[in-house]
């Protein structure tokens, strides 16, 4: 990989993924939603249980655990880290940014670069891009990229379509300057006309929280109940977007890297649900074994689904993962794909806290 638009100085050194100990088995929802419904949804989504963050734990808490794991496994000290990115749609506060809180908690240098990113399912790829650029420009040596979401805190129990699908998880990825770098390339797509497709309408400046207005439970045509303060997804819009755009981005990236589909050892697709993953595999005409689906016992963990897939199936060093395509798509509507070399990456096995 060389030429324009190649980030060539960074190396993805290690990554870890953490899931909450608590899981919600979809069977537990049978009383609320009915057995038939549970069975049907499980069949089409491929999901049997979803991870649920503890009431007193936030995305940042799980990211903290994932970060400690990466530091421990790599032997790096917090003082070695000169950049911290915290990616989340469920930060601790509106103000201040959560990355600063994590800087203090992890004991990172006070002169380190420190900021939050807010993006949906394409976020992991964006975070890798951002971290790699911080290395590429020469400013940072070791960037800790933390990504975590606890969407369970924003889903309404009466929203069957989301309660049975979304899971909570967090990851930490260390991207460092290296004499032995692993170059990467990216491909992006954004269509803001789909902003309403996945949205928490209230709570920002556009629609402030108002008791008796934004907290009123309403049901949609599919029988899913939620308030304006909950996450609301129009699954169909997102599905159409995903199955159309993800293959295009991936094909574009194959073209710019010069990789053939056979060259690629792993297509790490955002694990939205079984129908979507199966569909993308079929449209791309790729080997199903190269695009695994692994969210049966976690649910769709948003942008963490990509590191979760890696930590579940590929823990250790995988010398054959020198050509990996990662692709995330969702909220925005935004999609992003990356061509990566993970052959030297220490992928730490998924753990729970």
């Amino acid at each position: 990989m060389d030429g324009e638009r190649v980030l060539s100085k960074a190396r993805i050194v290690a990554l870890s993924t953490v899931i909450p100990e608590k899981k919600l088995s979809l069977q537990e929802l049978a009383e609320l939603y009915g057995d038939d419904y549970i069975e049907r949804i499980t069949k089409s989504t491929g999901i049997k249980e979803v991870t649920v963050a503890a009431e007193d734990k936030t995305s940042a808490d799980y990211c903290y655990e994932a970060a400690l794991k990466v530091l421990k496994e790599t032997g790096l000290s917090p003082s070695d880290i000169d950049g911290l990115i915290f990616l989340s749609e469920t930060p601790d506060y509106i103000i201040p940014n959560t990355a600063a809180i994590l800087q203090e908690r992890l004991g990172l240098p006070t002169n380190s670069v420190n900021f939050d990113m807010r993006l949906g399912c394409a976020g992991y790829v964006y975070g890798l891009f951002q971290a790699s650029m911080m290395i590429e420009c020469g400013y940072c040596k070791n960037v800790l990229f933390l990504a975590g979401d606890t969407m369970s805190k924003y889903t309404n129990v009466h929203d069957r379509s989301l309660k049975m699908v979304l899971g909570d998880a967090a990851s930490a990825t260390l991207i460092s300057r290296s004499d032995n770098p692993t170059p990467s390339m990216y491909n992006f797509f954004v269509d803001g006309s789909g902003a309403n497709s996945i949205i928490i309408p209230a709570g920002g400046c556009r629609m402030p929280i108002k008791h008796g207005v934004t907290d009123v439970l309403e049901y949609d045509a599919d029988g899913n109940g939620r308030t304006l303060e909950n996450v609301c997804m129009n699954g169909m819009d997102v599905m159409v977007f995903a199955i159309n755009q993800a293959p295009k981005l991936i094909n574009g990236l194959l073209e710019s890297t010069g990789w053939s589909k056979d060259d690629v050892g792993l297509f790490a697709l955002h694990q939205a649900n079984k129908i979507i993953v199966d569909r993308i595999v079929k449209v791309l005409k790729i080997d199903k074994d190269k695009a695994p689906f692994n969210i049966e016992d976690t649910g769709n963990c948003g942008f963490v689904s990509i590191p979760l897939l890696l930590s579940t199936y590929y823990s250790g060093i995988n010398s054959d993962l020198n050509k990996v395509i990662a692709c995330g798509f969702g909220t925005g509507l935004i999609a992003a794909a990356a061509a990566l070399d993970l052959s030297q990456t220490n992928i730490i096995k998924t753990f729970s806290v």
Partner: protein
Amino acid sequence: MTEQEKIALLEETLDAEEGSLKADMELTEVEEYDSMAKLSIIVMMEDEFGKKLSADDVRAFKTVGDILKWME
């Protein structure tokens, strides 16, 4: 494909019981017709009939018959 075959394929797609769907049925009466079912219809329509449905096309479906009309 005969109308009967189309209905059978739709029942299979929706995971609905054999013989449970009729062309004049309102989709609001079809218990299985939820968001995941709509995704399955989008996929089925492209695979079986080479038609790319938009989300708006699917939203316009009111009866089982509206879906059957696309299945050719």
